[in-house]
């Protein structure tokens, strides 16, 4: 376990926002807390919280570190995987830099092989995920994985995690999910009260607030304030703006270009069926179950394309289409993401046949080279609605 709490040498070269990230993460370390960095929605953060440590999502959304990562990783690989690894080896991600332990998971092929290399940079715990989401044997297996994750944290941080610690973390995290849900459900209003980019920024930004209670309070205040403004002053978004659902690979940072292209062309993104949107938030942990069992069930139900099969994603899409009164679906695939790319066909069929809604798919990466084409393609899609 590293006891690092000094800033990296390249700190001074960073822009202000990055510096703030470093200082915030350093403050956690200075307060004597352990920081656990993770990458994926499948990570049961409740266990980390129950260990008295602070969970934090790691940097993976900028092309800045991709050239460095390509010295090791193949070029024809998902930009998210390359970016993650690049940040890890360059001291450019404050959260990775200050993390005492990294959590990886066996989701896609690119990630699980990359984590093997990550282990050479920092202690990394790999959660072994089953491929089959819905079965008793998968659940039994994953329950054991959650249990060993708990034991690993106990050993790393020299603590003992009780059932009561876990239940407390579950209750807190469930409250946070309810708060986020209330916030993004505002977008079911007609017209939506704010832009989809605003919603994305608020959701994504909230990931980096370390004090969960403060995060909940801030989110509730924001929800209330937006609703009040909407009630008294109306919305800046047009009532006739086509309502778009974004689904697929995670989008943040570099790939916000997609949200921008939709909204600059007169559409509004009302919901995100992806990892920075609804994917982690929709399902609560059943507080009446044994905590390890409850945690394993919730996380195993994550409707990710790495699962075979993934009918849950289609069901969730149907529900979101109704809840947010969706006019069109945009499916985002990051370059070389086979699982989302292939699943796109089923999503297209589902959206077109079951809901009779227009669907379009985009394959993109973290470069800005396709910004013009994205604008044309998404512009035409919105003009079509």
């Amino acid at each position, binding site marked *: 376990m590293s006891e690092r709490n000094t800033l990296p040498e390249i700190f001074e070269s960073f822009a202000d926002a990055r510096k703030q990230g470093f200082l915030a993460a350093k403050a956690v370390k200075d307060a004597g807390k352990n920081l656990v960095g993770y990458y994926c929605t499948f990570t049961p953060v409740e266990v980390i919280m129950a260990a008295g440590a602070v969970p934090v999502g790691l940097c993976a959304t900028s092309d800045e570190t991709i050239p460095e990562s390509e010295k090791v990783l193949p070029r024809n690989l998902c930009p998210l995987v390359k970016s993650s690894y690049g940040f890890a080896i360059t001291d450019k991600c404050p959260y990775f830099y200050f993390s005492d332990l990294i959590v990886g998971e066996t989701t896609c092929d690119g990630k699980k092989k990359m984590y093997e290399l990550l282990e050479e940079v920092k202690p990394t715990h790999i959660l072994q995920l089953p491929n089959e989401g819905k079965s008793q044997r998968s659940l039994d297996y994953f329950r054991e994985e959650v249990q060993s994750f708990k034991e690993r944290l106990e050993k790393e941080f020299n603590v003992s995690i009780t059932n009561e610690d876990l239940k407390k973390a579950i209750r807190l995290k469930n409250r946070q999910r309810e708060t986020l849900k209330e916030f993004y459900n505002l977008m079911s209003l007609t017209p939506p009260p704010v832009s989809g980019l605003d919603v994305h920024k608020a959701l994504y930004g909230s990931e980096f607030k370390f004090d969960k209670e403060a995060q909940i309070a801030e989110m509730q205040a924001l929800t209330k304030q937006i609703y009040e403004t909407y009630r008294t002053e109306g919305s800046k978004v047009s009532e006739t703006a086509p309502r778009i659902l974004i689904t697929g690979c995670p989008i943040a940072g570099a790939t916000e270009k997609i949200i921008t292209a939709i909204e600059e062309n007169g559409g509004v993104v009302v919901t995100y069926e992806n990892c920075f949107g609804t994917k982690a938030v929709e399902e609560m942990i059943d507080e009446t179950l044994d905590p390890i069992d409850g945690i394993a069930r919730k996380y195993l139900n994550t409707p990710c394309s790495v699962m075979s099969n993934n009918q849950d994603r289609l069901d969730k899409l149907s529900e979101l289409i109704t809840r947010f009164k969706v006019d069109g679906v945009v499916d985002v695939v990051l370059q070389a993401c086979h699982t989302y790319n292939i699943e796109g066909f089923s999503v297209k069929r589902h959206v077109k046949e079951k809901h009779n809604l227009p669907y379009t798919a985009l394959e993109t990466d973290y470069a800005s080279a396709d910004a013009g084409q994205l604008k*044309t393609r998404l512009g*035409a*899609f919105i003009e*079509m609605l």
Partner: protein
Amino acid sequence: MIYMGIDIGSVCAKGAIFHGDRLEKVMLPTGWNIKETANLLRSTLLAQAGARDAEVSSVVATGYGRVSIPYADKKVTEITCHARGAVYLNPNARTIVDIGGQDSKVISVDADGRVQDFVMNDKCAAGTGRFLQVMAHVLEVEVDELDQLARHDKAVTINAMCTVFAESEIISLLAQGTDKGAIAAGILSSISQRVQHLSSRISVQDQLIFTGGVSNSNVLRHMLSEKLKLEVHHHCDAQFAGAIGAALLAREICE
């Protein structure tokens, strides 16, 4: 009342106006200064129609340069404009294959020229006019000479879809002493293959109209027709479909 459509493509800039029942068209090379080209298009169109600037009621801009036209009332994507313009040129058109300088797209439309669905090439220039330009350069001919040069019955297979790789492939073929006509046919055939691939993801219905600068190639139209097992229609004004569509949309703004 004059309704103007301006379509700034990556290679050619097209303008169309409806002046009463009359349709006027102008085409210029896009050049590097889009604003200047757009101004020249406007003045040339008006001169051709014998009309004054003040008579212009509305302007719709399209094409990749649409954002840089200061006098446009509205910007609309080339997909919407091509659909509208192609159905104006051929009311029976239900599928449009458009290959321009840097884009290729297949659009499915209804009888009113409204887009039902579309597919577009990814960011690379495979199977576009730019691809033809690079390949023609290697053969030391102009793009519009490829047609005459092509020996359809002897077409070689060009495997590479990437413009850069295809260029090396052609250089190797030339080095092996392969007939230029067979290579020219191979180049055109590889474009038709690309379009076939693109159109497999959309429902292609009769009649199909081929638009954009690349549609001027007779050989390519013939190849496309064989690949898609469908008659490929053309129109002498096919290259103006986007500008005409934009002018029609300009008229709609005022109605």
